[in-house]
């Protein structure tokens, strides 16, 4: 249970659960990417590495 909660509250879970669709929808709303799987892939390409860096560096902007 502790491991599950640790994952749910982790930066990578936030990136997968929220940042990924958010970045995808922002890119589409700004007409930077056409709606569809390409937008989803670009969203993942930004959100997942960002979440991984936040997970292992302990900061979303590397200023800590």
């Amino acid at each position, binding site marked *: 249970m502790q491991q599950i*909660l640790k994952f*749910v*509250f982790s*930066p990578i*879970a*936030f990136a997968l*659960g*929220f940042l*990924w*669709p*958010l970045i*995808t*929808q*922002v890119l589409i*709303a700004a007409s930077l990417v056409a709606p569809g799987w390409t937008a989803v892939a670009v969203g993942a390409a930004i959100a997942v590495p960002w979440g991984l860096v*936040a997970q292992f560096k*302990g*900061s*979303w*902007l590397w*200023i*800590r």
Partner: protein
Amino acid sequence: MDQIVDLTRVDSLTDTQLDVLERQIANKYMRKVPWGAVAWGIGNCVFFFTLLPLVILGYVPLWLGFVLATVSIAASYLPSHEAQHNIIAGKGKPLRWLNELVGHVSTLPLAYPYRVLRATHMEHHAHTNEAELDPDYGVHAASDWDYLIQQIRGRLGGDGGNTNAYGATLERVGQSALFVDAIIYEVVYLGVLFTLAWTGFAIEAALLWWLPRHIALIYISYYLSWAPHHPGEETGRYRDTRAFKSRFGNVVSMGMQYHIIHHLYPRIPLSLTPAAYRELKPILARRGCDLGAL
């Protein structure tokens, strides 16, 4: 109630007489049910959770929804604060249920559990400005800009402001069971955000709850913790909290200009702290309180 104490008379009183007079004045403002805070707490919660579908369904523009949501979340803490201090009704009183209802309901937009806030806030009162024991001690910063930078850096670092200090406080006071409340609130909050995001409403979720909540937490902490306790170097009943004049007025500063009254007499409702302050001011000046320009 608005009778102002004669400053000359205050100067001639002994410390014991001053204690008696101070308590007599403060007592006049206590034991009054703050019905405005009750309506505010419940009404604001209903407003916030009505706003979300109205924006998502297109009845309210997103930019306006963002502004209203931010104001609503920022306004959600204070009614709960009244309940934390049992101001609406103490234990065993007929309206106790209403006190607890307001406490729980009002902070739902903030996604912060009432019982955790109450337990940690009592420790803040008991140990104000004590580095090891005050759960709000971490907000202290040299200036308001330093405070803002520290808060933003803390949130980007993923520690969520005072989360670590609050957790440590709960453990220290033997209230670790309240972690369950915190976990449930966080799981539900993230669950709503993730669900909205993956069903096509990520931008709405970000601008109606995620970003407004961060802004509101920084704002609330500024006026309730940083400003009235700055510089946070002194302890003691009459020195750990100050009065201050906000350039933005009493409403924008959430009534915290008079926070010194709240720390001296936590059972005085927020709406009555300005009147209590005006009447107690000569006594507070004699006590050596920092009254700023108020």
